[in-house]
Every structure is written in structure tokens, then in C-alpha cells.
């Protein structure tokens, strides 16, 4: 029995080697070259490659990566297939074929691309993975990126987690809140930003506690000023139930973040903040106060 399996595997391997996807190879060659309109031509090859039975994962991924609506007349089928969503779909198909490889590639490579469209397509693909794929593994990878030493990884992970948090705060926000204790300040910065972009009111208590820690007695209990400042901004982005929290900061005369809170409130344009702002105007100017003692 074992022997049969062995032979079968061998045969499959040989067949696999023999029928390498020619169009895929050609497309990749084009990308590396310095030919005119190389991307447009490569995309054509990738499309053809998808009709072949082998190496589909890579062809899907590269099609998602390089396709662009600029190549086509508007409103044609090709043009529609080059939309961000369709490109994300291609990247997701690549993931479905080879989960581990393409998950890592999307998080640590594709998101780093300079092209905004590529980033958005990758975001779309990651959203699909979140909804239909291995969610746990995705979240682990994103957390790993958020803890990375590399600024780009942290930034990209915060961006994706912010979006995922907007769609599913129940799962994502608690993960982010837990990361507020992470040892790396830059990671905490990005976590706070992600919480702001997720915009979920669930994050308010954690952000408020972090902001308040500035007046803690011991230095080790105090969050860094940069992080606290961003936390105020995040509260501003959350809006709604965060407004009273921001007003509280404005009213805390000992807070260094009053100016930030005022700015965040001004952007929200909420009428409720007019009174606390007027109160701030009434504060005493500098003076000397003499207190007699008995």
C-alpha cells in the first residue's frame, strides 16, 4: 500500500515539473524586464496562466498585485475585473490555495507596497480572510506585525486592525486593548491609533485609564506623553460616548492634554462642548493670593 502512494507521489511530482505554467513564467519575466508597458502585458499572461491547471496560487496573487483599471477602457469587463475589490479577491484566491505562504506575504510584503491601490487590495483580501479564512492565524500574524521592530509592519498592522475593528469590534477591540500593556512604546502608539480608527466605544475605558495615568505618582505607572496624546485623538475619532470623557479632560485643570482634548472636540463639532469651553475661558489669570492663618 505504502509503495503505491510513493509511486503516485513521484508520478505527480514528475508531471508537476514537466507542465510548468508557461504563461506565469512569461509574466514574471516581463515584470523583471524593462520593457514598455510591461505590467499591462504581464497581467495578460497572468490571466492566461489562470486557465492552466498549475501554479494557480501565484498567478492569482500576481494578477491581484499588478492588474490596474488604467489598462482598460472604462466600464468594460476587463476594467471591472481590475477594481480594488476584484484584485483583493484574486489575492484571497491565492491565499485559499496556499494559506500559510500568502497570509504572511500579504501582511509583511504586499501592505508595504508604495501603491495605494495595492495596499487597498491587500486590505480587501485580508478582510476576506478574516471573514472566510483562518481568522485566528490572521490575527496572530497581525499582532506579530504590530509587535515588530519594523515601523512599516507596525503601521500596516494598525491600519488593517483599525479596519477589521470597525467591522467586528467585539473580537478585535479586546485584542487591541490587551496590547496596550505591550512593552514597546511604538507598538502601544499603533495600538492606540488602531483603536481610534476602529472607532468602537468599547475602547473608551481603556483609553481613558491610559490618559489618566499621566498624573500617577510613580513614573513606571505613567504612560508616555506621546501615547497619551494619541489616545486623546483616538477618543475624538470614536466620538459619541467619548465626548463626556474628552470634556472631563478639558475640565481636569492638571491635565497636560486639555489642549488636545479641546482640539478633538472642536473637530467633532458637538454643541455639548460649548459650555465646558466657555468655563475654560473664565479661569483665573495669574495672580497672587494671600491666605491669612490663625
Amino acid at each position, binding site marked *: 500500500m505504502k509503495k503505491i502512494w510513493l509511486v503516485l507521489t513521484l508520478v505527480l511530482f514528475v508531471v508537476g515539473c514537466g507542465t510548468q505554467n508557461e504563461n506565469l513564467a512569461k509574466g514574471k519575466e516581463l515584470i523583471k524586464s524593462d520593457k514598455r508597458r510591461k505590467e499591462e502585458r504581464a497581467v495578460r499572461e497572468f490571466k492566461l496562466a489562470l486557465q492552466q491547471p498549475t501554479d494557480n496560487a501565484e498567478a492569482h496573487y500576481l494578477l491581484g498585485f499588478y492588474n490596474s483599471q488604467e489598462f482598460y477602457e472604462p466600464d468594460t469587463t476587463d476594467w471591472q475585473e481590475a477594481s480594488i475589490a476584484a484584485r483583493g479577491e484574486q489575492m484571497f484566491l491565492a491565499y485559499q490555495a496556499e494559506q500559510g505562504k500568502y497570509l504572511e506575504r500579504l501582511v509583511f510584503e504586499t501592505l508595504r507596497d508604495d501603491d495605494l491601490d495595492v495596499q487597498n487590495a491587500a486590505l480587501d483580501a485580508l478582510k476576506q480572510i478574516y471573514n472566510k479564512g483562518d481568522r485566528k492565524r490572521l490575527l496572530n500574524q497581525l499582532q506579530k506585525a504590530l509587535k515588530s521592530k519594523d515601523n512599516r509592519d507596525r503601521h500596516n498592522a494598525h491600519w488593517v486592525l483599525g479596519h477589521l475593528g470597525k467591522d467586528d469590534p467585539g473580537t478585535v477591540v479586546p485584542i487591541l486593548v490587551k496590547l496596550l500593556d505591550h512593552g514597546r512604546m511604538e507598538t502601544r502608539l499603533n495600538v492606540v491609533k488602531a483603536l481610534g480608527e476602529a472607532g468602537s466605544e468599547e475602547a473608551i475605558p481603556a483609553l481613558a485609564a491610559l490618559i489618566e495615568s499621566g498624573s500617577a505618582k510613580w513614573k513606571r505607572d505613567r504612560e508616555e506623553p506621546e501615547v497619551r496624546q494619541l489616545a486623546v485623538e483616538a477618543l475624538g475619532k470614536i466620538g459619541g460616548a467619548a465626548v463626556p470623557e474628552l470634556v472631563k479632560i478639558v475640565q481636569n485643570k492638571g*491635565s497636560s492634554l486639555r489642549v488636545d482634548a*479641546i482640539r478633538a472636540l472642536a473637530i467633532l463639532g458637538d454643541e455639548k462642548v460649548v*459650555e465646558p*469651553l466657555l468655563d475654560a475661558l473664565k479661569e*483665573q489669570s495669574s495672580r*497672587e493670593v494671600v*491666605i*491669612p*492663618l490663625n
Partner: protein
Amino acid sequence: MIKKITRFSRPHCYVSIVLLFVLILGLGCDNQYHDDRLKMQVQQLDSDLKNRWSTSGVVVLNTTPNGPAHKAQLETGELISYVIAEYPVRSAGDFKSAMKKALDEDNNFLLYLKDKPPLRIALRRQGDKVGLSVEGNGTVRVKQIQHGTPAANTDIQVGDIVEKIVDERKIYSIDDYKKILGKLSEKQVTFRTSELIGVKIAAVTALGDLGDIRAIEPLVDLFKSSPEFSLRKASISSLQRLVELSVLNELFQQFQSANVDQLPTDSLQPQQLESAAILGLLTVDRIENTATLKAPFGTQFRHRSERLYQKINEGQLAELAQEYIQISVEPEQEIRRACLSILGILKPVSAIDVLIAVLENPAEIPGIRFQAGLALSQIGQPAVDALIAAFEKGNASTKDIAASALGGIGGAKARDRLINALEGNSEPAIQLTLVDAIAKIGDAPSIQALERQRQQYQQDDDSGIRIFLDEVFKSLDNGSM
């Protein structure tokens, strides 16, 4: 069985609650302190307030009614930055002990001598000599000044009468506060408080952005009464912003009455649309023919714009601006400029005389005089007579500004006076301004007048006026094409 367990665990529960309470109390008190003598609670400042706003001290959280702090009208929220101790000097012994206390830790104090400004005495190192000895009882006089000491480097003479020693201590933390207050056993304590100007400026700016009418009176008060230029500047800028917002009322009312946040661009007045877009209140999509109010502010403002418009047009702000465009009232030019902008937007006819006075004032900065002319041209036809009068009697610079303003207004009367001045050749110094103003009016009689000028100077190759006329005609041709 169950009963047993609950009975057993109840004391545990109490213990843990008490423990928790103690813990919370302990933690909570870390950054707060109750001063039993002054009867008030103070709070530690944020750690980074010092770095970001160069501010330090403790904040008054509350004062106990009828306690010493409360009676002295120290208010909740005031920031205590300095404690000042005063030591009256009535004898040589007083002097010695006061000096010792005052020098402790910070090595410096203020010495008050009769009929002299206070002198700061600072030692380089702890234990150094001040170099001053005194004598007398009741009235204490300087007896001796030692050479090479800090006292010898100041303006102190033998025989000067010593009144008191004052020690100012900067407070950085609750611990500082406790330590300093603990040492003072005087009859009184003096605090110096600091104002957080940055917070007020941010609040003032935010109030301008929010477009709420409740902000107007407090901003006017602050503008009139604050000694701080930065605050007054921020207040007038915010008022200017409110005025700018109020004139968009008509536009916002269209959204409000349709009860929508999006309208076709071509149903709206182009100029207002443009200003609203510049102020960031809405986005315009010419291709889709849509103007969309931006959330959150744009969408909220449509509910407020009518009230703001009415309040602004009660005339209070126009009056304020008229007063503060005068250099005799307002020394800060940035504020005079802001007030001129406000008048340019509100266009009150009552401001014409004051604006003319600014325009004519030789002591005023040329840029501001010109801005007064601009405001007059924004007021338009009602200002024509006053401008012509200023033109008749003014010197060259006044004529220049008035002519330019008249060109901005246009109309037959302004035009005829300008053409008359140009053709009478009565004002050679402002010839170019006249040509420019007439070209700006640009109707048939204006063009004919400019044509006549061109013919007159046709042979004159080098004259500036000819070159300028050529330029004017070139741009007129381009404009009409």
C-alpha cells in the same frame, strides 16, 4: 451545606472589600493631598505638563467652605506655581533667622530696602556668605557690607533701612508643596498662581470653529479685557471666523429647508459655495454636480447658521470692529487688520467715516490704510461720495488708495471722477493707479478714456504709462476673448 459555605465566606468577602477599599484609597491619594491647615485639597499636575507647557505646580481641587483658603477666595482649578514667604525684619535677630530660612535649599531671596526696588540676593553655593550685617531695633539699618560678597555687588548702602525678606519657592510636585508649607509657620501664606494661556487659546479657537452664538459675548469680553495679546488675537480671529460663517447662512438655509446634506451645485450661489468649500464646510463635485456638507461640522452647522446670522447682524460686532480699527485705540496691527476684515465682510454703512479716517491717517501703516480702502470698496456704492471727498482733499498716498477703492466699486460717478483726474493730468503721481482703476471698471466710457490716453502717449516710447497702457489693453483683449 450551601448555607454553611456562604456563612463561611462572608467575612472573607468583607475583608477583601475592605482591602480593596484601602488599596483604592491608597492609590487614589498618591497624586492628591489634603492641606489641613489651609483646608483645601490639591492635586499633582500631569507629569508632562512641565515639558510641554513649561508649567509646574499643584492644582486646587476644592476648598472647604469657610476654611482659610476658601475665605481668601482661592478657586478650584487654580494652579499654584509659587509659594511666597514674607519675613518682616524688626531686629537683627529677625534678619538673621529670616535669611537662614529664605536661603534654605534654593540659595536666594528678595531683599526689600526702604525706597529701593527689591533686590535679588543669590549665593553661588550653599554656606556662602551674603556679606551683610544689620543693627537696630524696630528700625533695622545696614551696618556693614563685606567686600567680594553678593551684597557688595548690589546697590546697597550702609544706613539703608531693611523692611523685609521675601522668599519665593517654585513648586514642582505635591512633595514640594508639603515640604515648603510645612516649614512656613507664618501668619500668612502667599501663593502665586499661573494661567494656562495655551488652554484658553485652544478654547477660543475651538469656539470660533463651532459657530455657536453662545461664544460671542464671552469672546468679546475676553478680547476687550485680557491683558494678553495672544489671547486677544485669538479672540478676534475667532470672532472673524464666526462672522465668516454667519454670512454663509443663506447657503446653509438651503440645505436646512430641504433638510438634506447634499444639493446640486448649480442650485447654489457660486461665491458662497466657494467660500464654504475654502472654510472646509462642504465638498464640491462639479462632475457629479453635487455639494455635500462635510460631517461632522458642516452637517451640524446648518442647524445653527440662522441664529448665528441673526446674532452677528445685531450690530455689536460691527461696532466693536469700528472701534478697534483705530490706531489710537488698538496698538496691535494684527488686531486692527482682523477688525478691518470683519468690517469688509459685514459692510456696515455706519463704518464709512471711521474707515475713511484710517485710510487718511498718515501715522497708520500703508498696508492697513490700503486694507481700509478695500473694506470701503466692499461696502460699495454708499462709500463712493466719502471716497471721492477723500480723493479731492487727500495727499498723494490717500488719493492712491481712494482711487483704487473707487475702481473696485465702479459705477458712473466713481468712473467719471477717475477719468476726469486722469485726463485733467492733475495727479501725475498716481497716473498708473488711475489707469488701473479705470481698467477695472472696464465699461465702454472707461475703455474709450484709456484709448484716448494711449493715443496721447503713442510717440512716447520710454514712458511708463505707455508701457502700462499696452499691458492693460493686452489683458483686456485676452479677457474679452
